[in-house]
């Protein structure tokens, strides 16, 4: 089963959110999912401490020496493996990328995110060259506006597409429900069905966005 790696040397771009959404949605489809939390901030561990969706298993505290054998062990169990990496340029990141079937580079539609995120894209290409095999990779824009596409976002999309970068559509819109997942744990479906969970946002729209995003990722893994 495929290994999906969230990579960007910049923090706060939405790597953990992407990981949680994909894990939840793939599990909802019936997949057994292993999520590896390699981020010292332990965002996914915090999410899981409130409860994980069924069929999702979390492994924490995975360092540089453990990353390759841990991915291989989980992959061997016939599970989808989702790796959430730290937001720094480290060997842990480069090693995880080497094990990926798909590297997703989340970035907010800002020049700074694009510049730092492009380091991950360049690293993927260099690893492809060094290993003599292709590593599929794609960018997803995160925390985008639900209402309008900003000029910066349009320009960034043009630049990335022009450079031959695969862009995942739809982007992930800035939704309160995505942030609240880390406070409540579980998934968006549970959040929508539980009146005690208050997000102040449109959970149905967030779920729709997450499902379309997962579908787009699924298409890249076929």
């Amino acid at each position, binding site marked *: *089963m*495929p*290994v999906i790696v969230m990579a960007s*040397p910049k923090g706060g771009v939405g790597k953990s959110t992407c990981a949680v959404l994909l894990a939840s*949605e*793939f599990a909802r*489809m*019936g*997949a057994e999912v292993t999520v590896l939390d390699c981020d010292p901030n332990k965002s996914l561990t915090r999410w899981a401490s409130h409860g994980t969706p069924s069929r999702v298993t979390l492994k924490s505290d995975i*360092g*540089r*020496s453990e990353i*390759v054998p841990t*991915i*291989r062990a989980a*992959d061997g169990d016939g599970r*989808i493996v989702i790796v959430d990496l730290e937001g*720094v*340029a*480290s*060997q*842990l*990141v*480069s*090693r995880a*990328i*080497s*094990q990926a*079937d798909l590297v997703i580079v989340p970035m907010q539609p800002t020049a700074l995110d694009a510049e730092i995120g492009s*380091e991950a894209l*360049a*690293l993927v290409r*260099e*690893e492809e*060259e*060094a*290993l003599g*095999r292709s590593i599929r990779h794609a960018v997803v824009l995160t925390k985008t506006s639900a209402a309008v596409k900003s000029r910066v976002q349009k320009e960034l999309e043009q630049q990335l597409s022009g450079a031959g970068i695969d862009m995942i559509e739809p982007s992930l819109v800035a939704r309160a429900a995505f942030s609240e997942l880390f406070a409540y744990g579980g998934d968006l479906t549970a959040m929508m069905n539980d009146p005690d969970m208050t997000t102040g946002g449109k959970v149905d729209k967030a779920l729709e966005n997450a*499902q379309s995003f*997962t*579908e787009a990722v*699924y298409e890249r*893994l*076929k």
Partner: protein
Amino acid sequence: MNGSNRLAGLKARPKDTTVEEVRRVDEVGEARGFLDRTPHKKAGRKPSPRTYQLHPKVFPRVGEAIATEAERLGITQGQLIERMWDVYNGSTDTLTTGF
């Protein structure tokens, strides 16, 4: 989107990663600034659990003898005093000194 039958179609490429490949990946990463950032353990000797300080004044010949004997045994003067304390107590076990 529903059904594990769809998931059965998901592909994964073979990942027979060798030590040599990991080394190459590390090199490529390092060249781009992706370095080993594993927190390293603090270097040096661990702090001693022997924290109690005595302040005895003894005759020079006794002090010199204790110092020489500790050096000969390859232990600290404190450890030698602990042994002496065990003997003084009539204890032959190693509970006090750890020897």
